[in-house]
């Protein structure tokens, strides 16, 4: 097991190194100079030259790359053009928001998706099955931002059940945020109003963000359960006269959840792409919103840093999923 983990960790190194080269090359390949991005329409040539000299953009390219690499291994991703603050600080500051949103969405997807998929499979061919399949396919094909706008329009603008934007009512003063996770903060500080407010702010963005993973999880669960139901041992168990409940508990769910676990781990990248769109629609102050704002402001250090962090997390999460998978199912380790 340990060797497996170490080997997987070693594979990480070339991937991340390659990524750093790609990202470095990417910024150099972009049209326009950072100086123009900083000064915008007011830039004069003299000012642009001055800034370029200050940035040391005249050094050989490999020197620039190794300086870049030296910095990123120390988690120094440079300074955001949008905010003139360290990119890492901006990420750390906004990460709890995205994490809170992502986890809520994923929970929603699992809590709704798994039972839906399970019952669809058990009642194969019924209306529930067809509805689940169709619904999940529609869920996958709606552009996230379209869904987010519609949800917001109906439930926030028209019905007024939920807030439009943000993570917390701005007029709530004296709200403390010891952890940065607003829902948790409300509980920790005993501020129930803030707790409830934070939950209300999470609902619509989380629903929008959860749709695609929910659809995928429901379908994978359904397929996995169908697979297991067709396995000989389940048939045997059923023919032996074990009640459906026992079969479900002992065999079907446990075995079907294995592929589901993997899929849940893989939703991370999808959630991040979704967060960029969802957070923008709801002005939800997370990392996704920050990156969406980085695009028009040409805040490339932020995009660079974000991709590096997310890619590393993605690879690590997959590692964890694989290891967990291996722990549950010894057959994987042998392979």
């Amino acid at each position, binding site marked *: 097991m340990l060797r497996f983990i170490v080997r997987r960790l070693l*594979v990480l190194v*070339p*991937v991340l190194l*390659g*990524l750093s080269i*790609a990202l470095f090359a*990417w910024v150099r*390949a*972009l*049209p326009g100079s950072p100086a123009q991005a900083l000064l915008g329409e007011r830039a004069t040539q003299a000012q642009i030259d001055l800034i370029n000299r200050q940035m040391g953009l005249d050094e050989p390219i490999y020197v620039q790359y190794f300086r870049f690499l030296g910095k990123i291994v120390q988690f120094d991703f440079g300074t955001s053009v949008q905010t003139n603050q360290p990119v890492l600080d901006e990420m750390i500051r906004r990460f709890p928001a995205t994490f809170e949103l992502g986890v809520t969405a994923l929970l929603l997807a699992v809590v709704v998706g798994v039972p839906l998929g399970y019952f669809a499979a058990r009642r194969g061919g019924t209306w529930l099955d067809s509805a689940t*399949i*169709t619904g999940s*396919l*529609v869920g*996958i*094909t*709606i*552009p*996230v*931002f*379209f869904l987010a*706008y*519609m949800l917001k*329009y109906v439930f926030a*603008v028209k019905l007024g059940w939920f807030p439009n934007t943000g993570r917390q009512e701005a007029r709530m003063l004296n709200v403390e945020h010891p952890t940065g996770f607003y829902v948790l903060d409300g509980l920790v500080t005993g501020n129930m109003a803030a707790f409830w407010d934070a939950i209300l702010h999470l609902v619509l963005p989380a629903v929008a963000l959860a749709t695609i993973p929910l659809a995928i999880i429901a379908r994978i669960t359904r397929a996995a359960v169908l*697979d297991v139901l*067709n396995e000989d041992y389940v048939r045997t168990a059923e023919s032996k006269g074990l009640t459906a409940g026992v079969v479900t508990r002992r065999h079907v769910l446990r075995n079907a959840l294995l592929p589901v676990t993997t899929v849940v781990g893989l939703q991370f*990248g*999808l959630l*991040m*792409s979704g967060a*960029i*769109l969802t957070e*923008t629609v709801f002005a939800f102050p997370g990392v996704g919103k920050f*990156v*969406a704002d980085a*695009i*028009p402001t040409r805040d490339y250090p932020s*995009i660079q840093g*974000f*991709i590096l962090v*997310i*890619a*590393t997390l*993605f*690879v690590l999460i997959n590692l964890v999923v694989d290891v967990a998978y291996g722990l549950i199912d010894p057959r994987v380790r042998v392979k």
Partner: protein
Amino acid sequence: MSLGAAEAAITVAEEQGGGLWREAVKRLSRNPAAIIGAVLIALFVFVAIFADWLAPYTAMAPDLSQIEGPGHVPGPSAEHWLGLDDNGRDLLSRIILGARQSLLVGVVSLLFGMAGGIILGLLAGGLGGWVDSTVMRLVDMMLAIPGLLFAIGIAAMLGQGMTAVMIAIGVVNIPVFARLLRGQMLAQREADYALAAKSLGVKRSRIILGHVFPNSLTPVIVQGTLTLATAIIEAAGLAFLGLSGEDPSIPEWGRMLAESQRHLANAPQLVIAPGVAIVLAALGFTLLGEALREALDPKYRR
């Protein structure tokens, strides 16, 4: 045994592959989801090809004389079934003409992604060894970047334009195809017919290019159908983030959807029409792709 006999043995093994497709088509024709998907796709492709002929108006040039002021969007009428857009153009015509652009995005980015993926997958699955490791690390790297950001990054380098969008979406799909093909090829290489051919002394390149590769394409084709759907959706996401075609007078669903958000309150048809069009087109490919996947999956054949 002669090489000819070896070839014959392989062909027999492959007959089963051909049978797989034949049976799949039979299964598909009995699956209502597949039929609905196929109908939606047929409709979509038909509309895209005959858009000029189907559209009641040309709907390219704005007609500002129809617009009384900012925020005024003429609603549905007998002449204009879906009303006009905020530039005084027939919305229905723009939706019809927009099919062309969406189909183009889907197909071109699919071809681009598929071609790149097949080259990488072939290298990795065919050559193995260090080529395989290198390619797979590259694929890992590409998969680790959130798709939307990856596409934005590519498009930022290429500049504004539909070509940039198509290439960006295509590139994002390369690792998906590469990984799929490689996995399938590795499995096929271990298949009985390939092992048999190898033991009979058929050249490796011939086994791989002539037999293993074509036999590994099935999941790639399934994935391709699904990619047509995601490409259309991804193009809409990019349009929302400000990346779309150069000429805004050419109708494009993603852009229409993204840019009419401001009219959600006063003219929801501007948002809903392109939104529904995107969902239906993507649904068609998804339905067919999923049905195809199930039909080709031996697990479901019992």
